[in-house]
């Protein structure tokens, strides 16, 4: 069944949220072992890990963009531009993903 844009933004919001919730304990744990930061950074240069990091950053950007959309829909008085928020969220995510990829 073909779905509309807002549905996909909401699903991406949920999936990225779950991914981040799973990732964060690992992130906090490795940071907490800051004394071994250089060893960790060396490990993190492996291509698969780099790709994983990029995915997490994209997930974070997607979750933020979609979340700002939710805040706008719920808290601001309704106008016609509310419909464009899905596109705005997607554009913001793409921008951040690109920026991070270019920084690699």
């Amino acid at each position, binding site marked *: 069944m073909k779905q509309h844009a807002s549905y996909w933004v909401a699903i991406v919001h949920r999936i990225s949220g779950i991914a981040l919730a799973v990732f964060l304990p690992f992130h*906090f744990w490795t940071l907490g072992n800051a*004394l071994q930061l250089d060893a960790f950074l060396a490990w993190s240069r492996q291509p698969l890990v780099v790709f994983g990091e990029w995915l997490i950053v994209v997930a974070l950007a997607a979750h933020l963009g979609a979340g700002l959309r939710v805040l706008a829909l719920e808290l601001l008085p309704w106008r016609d531009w509310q419909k464009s928020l899905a596109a705005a969220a997607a554009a913001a995510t793409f921008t951040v993903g690109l920026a991070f990829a270019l920084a690699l």
Partner: protein
Amino acid sequence: MTRRGEAVLWIAQRASAAVLALCVLVHLVTIVYAMRGGLSGAEILARTRGNAAWLAFYSVFVVAVSVHAPIGLRAVLREWAGWRGRSRDVLLGLFAFFLLAIGLRAAWAVFG
């Protein structure tokens, strides 16, 4: 949970989201900056060690995450795993404290 309790959770979720929007923006900019600068572990830690501002920032970040993530998962567990009731809320409360503990530990580790 009471209707009022659920309304409070909704409010906490949106409030923490607003805080996180700012924290995440700062964090993303910081990380991209550190990566472009090719900063080593020692160089990163040199900037965060003893820096009360970074400690304060990351502590606020961690608290907001510890509120936001469990409340977000609460709806997912109910709607996609069919899990309702007290046991779900107890587990998520434990998850919140767990995130808070290891998160503040991490913030302290890069500060101390």
